[in-house]
């Protein structure tokens, strides 16, 4: 009995000018049926790339190893027809940039209903009724009128809600939400999170929630994964992870967290920036920025090891952090 989504030792390399460029290393991650899981990390650490792998949307020439199973079936070897069945209906995605992910020349109505009609076999009328319903659920004013409008006629926040409605349209079992609340203000953000949670409880929707704001995760998710430089560096129950991080990177992220519910502005930024793919230092990728770095960090990549109940951390000093906490 596996999880709904079961990613196991996934590695992804993209074609680069000087040979394959490794982007993801040894990523293992699960999302259970009806579970809300958080994925956090700084910009460029591979969150979106993981999402795209799971939807088969990697750029041409990308090489993958390991496995990613959805509902027990391997995704990485799917053919085109197989992907068409999984996408939208099995796994749906809210893209990071709602403005870019909506077609500028198609009405909102078309974009909300086209996959419903294919996956759910609905006729036009029924699909439109459902679309109005969904827009209502994401609190978009005047949904009937919105169906006839084009994306550019909405503000960024409204577009994000349209995109979320679109992802939910074909009743997916797993929703991958790639920073779906970045463009939204705090109240709307809370509304979206509440909506996702309600859907999870009512329909058993599983959600992988990608964000760089750890504060959002605490309110929402039971478990979280922290990514750094294409790897999972810490994983565990969100509450425990946030109150007692077992990896210096998680702790640094928490320190950089804005306070008072405001998103977007880091107060104590982590010094330096994450290494680019292909330019990783030997050993722990965080060693160039870590305040606790020691010699053994640079000899080998620390693997994920247990670090408390249901928790793992890829840091050589994880037990010391445990004691200190």
């Amino acid at each position, binding site marked *: 009995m596996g999880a709904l989504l079961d990613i196991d030792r996934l590695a992804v390399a993209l074609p680069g000018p000087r040979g394959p460029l490794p982007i993801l290393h040894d990523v293992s991650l699960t999302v259970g049926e009806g579970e809300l899981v958080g994925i956090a990390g700084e910009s460029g650490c591979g969150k979106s790339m993981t999402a795209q792998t799971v939807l088969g949307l990697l750029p041409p020439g990308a090489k993958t190893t390991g496995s990613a199973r959805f509902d027990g079936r391997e995704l990485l070897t799917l053919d085109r027809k197989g992907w068409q069945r*999984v*996408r939208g209906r099995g796994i749906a995605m809210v893209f990071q940039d709602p403005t870019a992910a909506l077609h500028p020349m198609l009405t909102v109505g078309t974009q909300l209903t086209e996959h419903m009609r294919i996956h759910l076999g609905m006729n036009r009328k029924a699909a439109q009724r459902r679309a109005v319903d969904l827009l209502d659920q994401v609190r978009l*004013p005047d949904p009937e009128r919105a169906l006839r409008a084009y994306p550019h006629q909405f503000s960024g*926040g409204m577009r994000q809600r349209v995109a979320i409605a679109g992802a939910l349209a074909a009743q997916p079992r797993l929703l991958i939400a790639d920073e779906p609340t970045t463009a939204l*203000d705090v109240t709307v953000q809370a509304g979206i999170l509440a909506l996702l949670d309600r859907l999870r409880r009512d329909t058993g929707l599983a959600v992988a929630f990608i964000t760089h704001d750890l504060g959002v995760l605490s309110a929402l998710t039971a478990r979280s994964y922290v990514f750094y430089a294409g790897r999972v560096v810490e994983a565990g129950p969100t509450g425990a992870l946030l109150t007692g991080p077992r990896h210096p990177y998680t702790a640094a992220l928490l320190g950089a967290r804005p306070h008072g519910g405001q998103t977007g502005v880091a107060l104590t930024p982590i010094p330096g920036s994450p290494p680019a793919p292909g330019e990783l230092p030997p050993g722990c990728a965080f060693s160039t920025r870590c305040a606790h770095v020691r010699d053994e960090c640079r000899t080998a990549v620390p693997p994920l090891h247990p670090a408390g109940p249901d928790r793992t951390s890829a840091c050589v000093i994880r037990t010391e952090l445990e004691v200190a906490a």
Partner: protein
Amino acid sequence: MTTRTTDNPGAATTAAPGPRPRLSHRHPMLAYLAKRLVITAGLLLGVTVLTFGLVQVVPGDPVTANLSDQALNDPAAVAAFRAKWGLDQPVYLQYWHYLQHLLSGDLGTSQQTGRAVVEDLLHYVPATMELAIPTMLLALLLGTGIGMLAAVRNGRLTDQLIRVGALLGLSTPPFWLSLVVLYLFFYQLGLSPSGGRLSPGFTPPDTVTGMYTVDAALSGQWELAWDAAQHLVLPVLVLTCLTVAILVRFVRSSMLEVLQHDYIKAAYAKGLPTSLVLRRHLLRAGLVPVITVSGLAFASLLSGTVLVENIFGWPGLGQYAYRSASALDLPAILGASLFVALVYTLVNLAVDLLYGLIDPRIRLQ
């Protein structure tokens, strides 16, 4: 792919009433149309000022420049010419006369043919249109299809073959291609006529549009229509090759650009079949930048193609303009220029309207 939205987070709250304000414009397309029409009218007026200015700067006496030798020896004709164009009056009145004549369809008399320039144009322009229209339709169809195929197969063998083909098409001189197809299909295979609009023994149909195939079909003369159509094949083939070569490159690069967008990825992510993504999502967005270059290509086809027309003995606008220019037939040159300017202006209008029709961001601005 990973660009974060640049939207101001505050926008979500300020736009709370939703799309209502902008949608309340009842007929945005009509407003857009009206604006374009005014601009077009302004452009056309500018064109008349230019052509009129051309007459002014041509050195020498406008009388000698405009009248044939025969008419010059006739004092009555000279006097009539001076009176008609108000040559003893100030320049702005002359321009006024010129405009009045233009509006009543009087472009003067060609020195070469002795006919009214308008009459000449009514004869030569439809011949050119008969080539330009099927060429453009074919080129659009083929150019879009082939260009899209190349974009979807980016970098693979199909794409490379198409790119080489387009490059060959672009670098082939039209007259050379004309000669090759003539040699092959007329001389070697005997499949097609050598040139002209009709075979000997046929008389042109009654003029409705001036395009023989259309007019013959309208009057039910099917044999005549068939003969006229056969004469179209080779010149249309040559012109289509060249136009397709231009379009393929544009379509390909435009589609490649569109394929990078998240909304194409998002369409695939919804589980839509590839054919639907290509037809509905890619095609629409990818064609927008192609409209302009297609318009230019069409305008250039409508302005006549001297070399191709020459080789196929096609009495089109290109030939007319060429002969008028080499004979310094001023009224004919001005008439042809005016027509070409008109074509470019109207095609430009059509391009703008198409933009508005296809792209709601322009229409609903």
